[in-house]
């Protein structure tokens, strides 16, 4: 009972999320929701390195692409099952993240942003030109959907329908949220925030700030690589555009608008923005103008994003109800 009482909100949200396939109006919207789950995983991982650790990695799409190409090539060329290819690819993204982090995390602030952005561009160029491995600009096609899982009693779980794909990405999103929650609400998470807040002091209270940054970067790249891997298997084909800087900036916008250094913010951002963009589509050429104005307004008036805005609204409401009573 205590568990239910303490966790009623996430449980309620999870219950709502489970009913999505029943209430979704059409296949097109459903596809947007599935992609939003994947982007939420990517945004949550960017949140770890940028929101909590304060290091603006702009190589995020690059690691998304490493995960995507990993799964694509391991399933089509090596013939591995998706369930083996996915962890291998995520670990590959984490490992390359470690190697990239060793030089880049020695730089600070905007220099780190610039050096990781270069890294992202390098990954995009390599994936477009290493024709024998990546298929060049045509990319990889015919990536099999996640292989069915045999389950006792129920039969086999296949991932051909949108509903089953949705539950698959939802499961990974919940897993990512659980990991992030345990990390952030612990001494380890405090260590990340200490680096973001005051690196000199963190160092002088005995924290190895460099290894803290490396760890955060590696975990972030593991999860964005995982998201990329699932993306490749669900879409069936990928091209070098998965590594493009546009995808990095999408993650960044979801994070900024949703709210940095919160757990709900990145998820809210990753769902709200793509859905909003769909509605704005009707306005055609004006849509980007409206979106741009919206972005500026949020950054000026809600610097902590939608989630930060909600929190201050709630404290304000509590304060005013107290004042009345």
């Amino acid at each position, binding site marked *: 009972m205590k568990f239910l009482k303490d966790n009623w909100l996430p449980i309620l949200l999870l219950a709502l999320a489970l009913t999505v396939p029943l209430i979704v109006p059409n296949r097109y919207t459903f596809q947007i929701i599935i992609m939003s789950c994947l982007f939420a995983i990517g945004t949550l991982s960017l949140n770890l390195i940028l929101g909590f650790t304060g290091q603006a990695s702009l190589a995020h799409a690059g690691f998304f692409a490493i995960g995507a190409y990993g799964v694509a090539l391991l399933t089509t060329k090596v013939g591995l099952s998706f369930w083996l290819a996915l962890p291998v690819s995520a670990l590959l993204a984490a490992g390359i993240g470690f190697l990239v982090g060793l030089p880049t995390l020695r730089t600070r602030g905007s220099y780190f942003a610039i050096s990781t952005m270069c890294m992202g561009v390098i990954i995009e160029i390599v994936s477009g030109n290493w024709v024998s491995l990546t298929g060049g600009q045509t990319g990889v096609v015919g990536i099999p959907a996640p292989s069915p899982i045999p389950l006792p009693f129920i039969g086999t779980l296949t991932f051909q329908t949108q509903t089953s794909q949705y539950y698959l990405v939802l499961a990974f999103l919940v897993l990512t949220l659980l990991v992030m929650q345990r990390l952030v609400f612990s001494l380890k998470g405090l260590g990340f925030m200490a680096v973001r807040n005051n690196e000199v002091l963190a160092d002088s209270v*005995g924290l190895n700030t460099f290894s803290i940054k490396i760890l955060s970067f590696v975990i972030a790249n593991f999860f964005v690589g995982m998201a990329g891997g699932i993306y490749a298997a669900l879409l069936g084909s990928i091209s070098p555009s998965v590594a493009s800087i546009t995808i990095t900036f999408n993650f960044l916008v979801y994070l900024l608008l949703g709210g940095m250094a919160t757990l709900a913010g990145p998820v809210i951002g990753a769902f709200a923005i793509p859905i909003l963009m769909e509605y704005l589509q009707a306005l055609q050429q004006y849509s980007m103008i409206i979106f741009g104005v919206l972005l500026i307004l949020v950054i000026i008036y809600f610097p902590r994003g939608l989630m930060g805005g909600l929190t201050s609204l709630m404290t304000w409401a509590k304060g005013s109800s107290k004042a009345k009573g």
Partner: protein
Amino acid sequence: MEPVLLKTENLVKQFEGLVAVADVSFEVFHEEILTIIGPNGAGKSVLFGLISGLLRPTSGRILLSGRDISGSKPHAVAKKGISRTFQTTSLFDQLRVVDNLALGHKMRTHDGLFSTLLHSPKWKKDKQETEAKVMETLQFIGLENKAFDFVSTLSQVEQKCLSVGVALAGNPKLILLDEPTGGLIQEDTEKITQLIRKIHLAGITVCLIEHKMRMVMDLADRIIVLNYGAKIAEGTPEEISRNPEVIEAYLGKEHRA
């Protein structure tokens, strides 16, 4: 027990042409309060920077309990038992009071990635120990009623106390306090003086930089005087107050008489 806790041997720090610390040798004895004084720019803070590993000595050695720690990184020096505070109060100002103290203690925990993810027994033990240490330190510095407040809402003296608390939470053998009363009014200075006495009574060695002479004379077991990077005097408060070279450095030549 070896009576010398920290020892510097012919310590030199040069910035380009400027010699900030020139051939300074001194000792800090177990459980004493040693105060470093000197005019502005005498190299006091640079000396702390060298001991805490923030700066690399140009030459010379720093020994902690007989072991060479010169050139170690700040986090390594802290783990070996030397904590410090900064002249301009340095805190994790986006976090709460308890978080600051927990971070001060973090280096004494195991804090593995997988034990954190799995909430292993070791993680739980670390968590309990950290919570106990945070509570203890809160009481020690007298901020129990501000435990969950954000740093930015604290008064200046509370922030100074907290920064000392963060250093104490790491269970140091030696604590370096860089002008802990800088910018405080008399009443608050008194509070900090009490706190330093309390630290001393708890068996922690204190080395402090201070300008307020009355407080220094009152607190210190021994005093070291720096001027232009060099040590010009060392002794008890009594001896220092009668030393002509010190009087000259502080007041100028014409006062000597």
